[in-house]
């Protein structure tokens, strides 16, 4: 630290000179305003400091230049020092007391290196000397690049080195064995290097050796000549000149000329900020502060746009790591600035921000008058800012604990974000830019598609008050559905197939959310998305999964138990519900995720407020499975036939529950449903109903009461069916009115249910109208008959097996394709293929049950994961 200060102090004059160098491009009077005074210090200081940083980064530019020249990067040479220096300079910048110019720093560095060389000489460590000298040579090279004269210091070092090398070699010759191999090698190479350097700078050295003092004088003269008004620019020097500059500053600041001046300054500083971007030791916070000040300064539209563009991107730059999120305050100001930018550009049609423009001079003020066609085109991309803003918002929500108040506070920002998006939409509509317009509409849609009416209204209310409004608003469309519909229709018309797909899915999701099951289902089926969804990216696949799940829930809410069951079955068979919905990371039993996979997975997660409650989902699925499966189970027993289980997950749970010796009162949702299933099996529909209705999670459904009512009705009906299946063998006749009484159903619906069962031949019975009862036609099957049936069954299964085996062996050759059921043969082939495909995948084995759409679910993320794991391995 102290050394640094000392060095800095040493090179005070140098820093002045560098200041001059920097401003040398300008005329002398122009440099004046940067001569500061205490009253205006805030602005001036930063102005000064940013010119500084401009210098420093042009310097680091050169840094990188020279780095590319020399294969060995600089940072390996001096990691510690450069780091410490960085922090120091940062500190200083912040204090605003001392600003070290680039040249100053370079010199300081050089001197440091010289010191190190001296130290090396003392202990005869030629390896380190060689390294240090390399560094020094590089610095000189850089110096040369900026066409600065060679500092005398370097020549001095060179000369002293030459003598010491010579003496060392002489010594070495006298006393061998004194030096180890590496050191000797270094010494030799040092000799070469010094000789080479001598040759390069021969002229200077001769001059220097002739008269060192004169040379030094010349050197300082050379530097000072470039900038006659020394010191005027420097705040930190605290010279008396400051006072002078003070006095003529005011009039200039107020005068008309100052606009041009500040404008000129703005572009320069902008350029420097832009160049500093992405550099190792740029202080992002400082950059932002500079730009903020610049924004205050900016007077013309062009300037404002330019500064805003730079400011917003530097705000987004602030946090470069992928895992953490942007600080909320920064986000809010970025959001404000995007708003400003949109407003500025929207209100000035003569200015256009484009991603591709012709080249223009960054340092020149432009206005519609100076351009050829009267339109100023500026390079930049508003849409990417909005995308980024939205992404950062999502990221922050992903990272904030969803159960804290912070999350809620953060969520409140969605409203302003939404209005920003709406304004951008209005802007793009106004300027008729189709591609960004569809992107922005997509963003807007994604904010509202999964939200209930009230939330959308709240979000939309802000757009109403905005100065510019998009053509599609809630007010103009009348309802949320209308709003979403028109947004989606807009996206369907665009050429981008990804947007179309996502819009379609969001549209379906919305219909499912408002319980318009039929429309949603028809749209999903007509879109044929289930065929092409594998090829979509993960985010779209997640959206697809969400949509399908929501569709299942909507079927459940509307009382379509069968549909709900079959829709939800697919995702539950995979047993990775949370993962497939991007609502949590799946715990793998046999596999550990690599950190990259885990990271990728985490980035995919949806923010908490978008989640579909998985417990509710499971309850809906299990209850509908119960209503479908229990009567089926009952009918299997009565027919003594093994039928395929419809819902494997449910069966598994039921078997597990059966095996338990003691059953306590139900606690979890699953317990409730399992006990309810048992009650239903026993014909105790009332108990079953009570158990199902006492599940607490139903309260999360908006229509809990009506859903419960619907469930009660379904339970009555299915209870009746189960009862009939289970107890039919024990009755000869059964009175309909008794059944109606037992299940408290109207006689008519009992008749209807029984009739349906008879008609579909589930129940071997018929109705006796006159006496009002069911007459069962129990068919007693003898043991022998039963065996005959079984063997017939087995033989036909065997024939089937043989056909399959032959199929597999012969491939698809149509040796017997002329059979009537050629089609089924084909289908079987497909299945075989599918199974083979699953076997190839690493995790196919554990999940044999999923086929058809279930497999599709599994493939969704499974494929992706497979790829990543391959890559990792």
């Amino acid at each position, binding site marked *: 630290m102290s050394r640094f200060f000392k060095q800095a102090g040493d090179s005070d004059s140098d820093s002045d000179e560098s200041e001059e160098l920097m401003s040398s491009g300008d005329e002398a009077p122009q440099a004046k305003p940067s001569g500061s005074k205490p009253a205006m210090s805030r602005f001036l200081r930063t102005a000064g400091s940013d010119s500084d940083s401009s210098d420093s980064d042009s310097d680091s530019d050169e840094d990188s230049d020279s780095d590319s020249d020399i294969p060995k990067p600089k940072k390996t040479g001096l990691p510690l020092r450069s780091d410490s220096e960085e922090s120091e300079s940062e500190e200083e910048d912040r204090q605003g007391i001392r600003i070290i110019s680039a040249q100053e720093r370079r010199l300081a560095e050089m001197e440091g290196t010289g010191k190190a060389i001296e130290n090396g000489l003392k202990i005869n460590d030629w390896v380190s000397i060689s390294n240090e000298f390399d560094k020094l040579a590089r610095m000189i090279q850089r110096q040369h690049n900026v066409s600065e004269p060679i500092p005398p210091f370097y020549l001095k070092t060179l000369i002293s080195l030459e003598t010491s090398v010579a003496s060392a070699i002489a010594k070495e010759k006298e006393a061998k064995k004194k030096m180890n191999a590496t050191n000797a090698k270094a010494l030799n190479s040092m000799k070469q290097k010094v000789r080479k350097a001598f040759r390069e700078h021969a002229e200077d050295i001769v001059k220097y050796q002739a008269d060192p003092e004169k040379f030094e004088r010349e050197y300082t003269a050379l530097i000072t000549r470039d900038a006659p008004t020394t010191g005027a620019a420097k705040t930190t020097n605290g010279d008396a000149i400051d006072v002078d500059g003070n006095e003529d500053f005011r009039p200039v600041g107020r005068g008309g000329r100052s606009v041009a001046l500040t404008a000129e300054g703005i572009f320069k500083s902008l350029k420097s900020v832009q160049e500093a971007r992405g550099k190792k030791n740029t202080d992002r916070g400082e950059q932002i502060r500079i730009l903020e000040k610049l924004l205050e300064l900016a007077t013309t539209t062009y300037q404002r746009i330019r500064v805003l563009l730079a400011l917003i991107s530097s705000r987004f730059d602030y946090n470069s790591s992928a895992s953490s999120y942007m600080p909320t305050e920064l986000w809010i100001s970025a959001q404000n600035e995007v708003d400003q930018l949109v407003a500025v550009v929207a209100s000035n049609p003569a200015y256009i921000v484009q991603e591709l423009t012709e080249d223009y001079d960054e340092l020149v003020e432009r206005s519609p008058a100076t351009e050829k066609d009267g339109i100023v085109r500026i390079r930049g991309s508003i849409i990417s800012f909005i995308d980024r803003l939205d992404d950062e918002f999502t990221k922050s929500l992903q990272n904030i604990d969803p159960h804290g108040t912070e999350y809620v506070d953060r969520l409140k920002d969605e409203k302003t974000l939404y209005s920003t998006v709406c304004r951008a939409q209005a802007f793009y509509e106004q300027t008729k830019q189709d591609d960004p317009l569809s992107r922005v509409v997509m963003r807007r849609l994604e904010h509202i598609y999964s939200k209930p009416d009230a939330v959308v209204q709240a979000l939309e209310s802000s757009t109403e008050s905005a100065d510019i409004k998009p053509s599609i608003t809630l007010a103009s469309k009348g309802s949320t559905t209308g709003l979403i519909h028109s947004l989606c229709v807009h996206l369907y018309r665009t050429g981008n197939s990804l947007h*179309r*797909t996502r819009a379609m899915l969001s549209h379906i999701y919305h219909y499912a959310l408002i319980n318009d099951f039929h429309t949603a289902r028809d749209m999903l089926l*007509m879109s044929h998305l289930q065929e092409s969804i594998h090829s979509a990216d993960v985010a779209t696949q997640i959206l697809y999964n969400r949509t399908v799940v929501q569709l299942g829930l909507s079927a459940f809410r509307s009382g379509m138990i069968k549909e709900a069951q079959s829709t939800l079955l697919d995702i539950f068979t995979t047993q990775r519900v949370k993962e497939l919905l991007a609502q949590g990371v799946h715990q793998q039993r046999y596999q550990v995720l690599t950190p990259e996979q885990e990271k990728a997975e985490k980035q995919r997660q949806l923010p908490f407020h978008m989640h579909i409650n998985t417990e509710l989902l499971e309850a809906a699925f299990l209850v509908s499975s119960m209503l479908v499966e229990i009567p089926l189970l009952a009918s299997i027993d009565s027919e003594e036939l093994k039928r395929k289980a419809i819902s494997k997950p449910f069966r598994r749970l039921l078997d597990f529950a059966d095996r338990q010796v003691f059953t306590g009162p139900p606690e979890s949702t699953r317990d409730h449903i399992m006990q309810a299933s048992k009650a239903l099996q026993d014909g105790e529909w009332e108990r079953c109903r009570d158990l199902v209705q006492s599940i607490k999670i139903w309260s999360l459904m908006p229509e809990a009461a009506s859903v419960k009512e619907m469930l009660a009705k379904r339970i009555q009906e299915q209870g009746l069916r189960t009862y009939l299946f289970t107890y039919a063998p024990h009755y000869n006749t059964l009175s309909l009115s008794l059944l109606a009484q037992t299940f408290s159903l109207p006689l008519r619906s009992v008749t209807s249910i029984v009739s*349906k069962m008879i008609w579909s031949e589930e129940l071997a019975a018929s109705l006796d109208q006159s006496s009002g009862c069911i007459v069962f036609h129990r068919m007693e099957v003898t043991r022998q008959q039963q065996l*005959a049936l079984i063997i017939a069954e087995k033989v*036909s299964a065997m024939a089937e097996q*043989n056909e399959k085996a*032959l199929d597999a062996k012969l491939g698809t050759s149509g040796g017997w394709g002329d059979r009537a059921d050629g089609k089924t043969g084909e289908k079987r082939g497909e299945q075989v293929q599918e199974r083979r495909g699953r076997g190839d995948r690493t995790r196919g084995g554990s999940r044999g049950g999923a086929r058809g759409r279930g497999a599709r679910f599994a493939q969704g993320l499974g494929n992706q994961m497979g790829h990543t794991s391959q890559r990792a391995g």
Partner: protein
Amino acid sequence: MAEYDLSKTLIPYLDRHLSFPLLAHLVETGVFPADEVQVAQYELAKGTNMFDYAVSLFQQIYPNQEVPKEFEEKRVNAVSTHERLEHEAQAVLDVITIPDVAQALRQDKNQNLQYLKDNFNLTLEQITALYNFGKFQYSYGNYSGAADYLYHFRVLSTDPDLTISAHWGKLASDILTGKWEVALEELNSLREAIDSRTPAPFASVSSSANNNTPAVDPALSQLHSRTWLVHWSLFVYFNHDQGRALLLETFLSPAYLNTIQTSCPWILRYVAAAAIITSPTPTSKSSSVPQSSRVKNAVREVVKVIQMENYQYEDPVTAFLMQLHVEFDFESAQKELQKAEKVVLDDFFLGQFHDEFLESARCLVSEAYCRIHQRIDIGDLSDRLNLPRAEGEKWIVNLIRETRMGQDAKIDLEKNLIQISRPPQPVYQSVIEKTRGLAIRTQALGAAIARSGAAAAQANVSTSVQVQSVEPVAAVV
């Protein structure tokens, strides 16, 4: 019954001229006030070249007002246009009616065109004159003339769009002249033209875009064409002898079923009615024509579709089928049948099939009733069938006598009951059924193996042994 009237939904999908019969029918049924319908008729006629008709309608509606002048002007215009077009068309017609020319014309349209151009100096424009004249004739109501000209045009023209358009025109003309045989042919060829028109883009749409793609989508225009065809074909199908079966055949094919479900669910009424009408009844002994399986199972299929589309469309006809075959609620079915009867009577297309519909519907009810019940009160059944007791008894006796039900059902007159005893299927029957195809399948298997070589021969042997051992068991049982 106005709420069940479909005229309003159908007319947008019909040609102006095709709508006249519908409106005329509305006047007859009196569902809507007659003068309103007349105004509609007048509005409709105003857009055509049928001035005399329009004028007479005008005079009927506004007896005290003077006929607008514009008709007179239009008439003059039309007469001159007619002469001009006729003159143009006549030139072509003269050429192609020469017997030599008629013989020289081949299948290849381009060759024909070249031939006509070389020998008679006929150009494409002149041939188009045929189309224009045909269209003009159609517009003032000379349908048979229009049909002729359009036919000739179609033979010669190479322009695909105009040919399709001529197809439609010819179909409309044939419908309006009441030539159902010709119209049916025309309908089928038009259907082929529509179905074959866009095979390639269809696949690409389903694979890539998979969305409500932009308006110029060929799939969408195909859907439109199909929708129109579905509506126009109602005229043909409900007037042709074999029409109902053909209707089911067409409308239940996947492409048209999809069309109906997507764009015009109300057509389900006609599908349902056709399914009911074609279902076999004791009185309709016209099963001389073998029916395809699609028609035989029409009721079942239609019920499935109706159930699926119930949220979109419902009327008494479909509701009747729903109640009967989904809910098995005979009481509501009976009520729906009462309503459906009226609807059918008032419907333009279904009106003439009222009796058949009722008869078939009763058969359906009694079939379902008998299959579910063991003992049926005749009086009750008569109620279900909307028949008075005495008549109902007669009807039921007839039914039992003439259908296969006769073996199982006996009437107990003393108690006024029908006893139905349906013995359960014996076990051996089901065993036989299960093993029926095995021998043939195994043979096929054997053949396949013989073809592929001796490698897989052993599997074959083992199967055939198994099958042989089964048959004795079945015999024992």
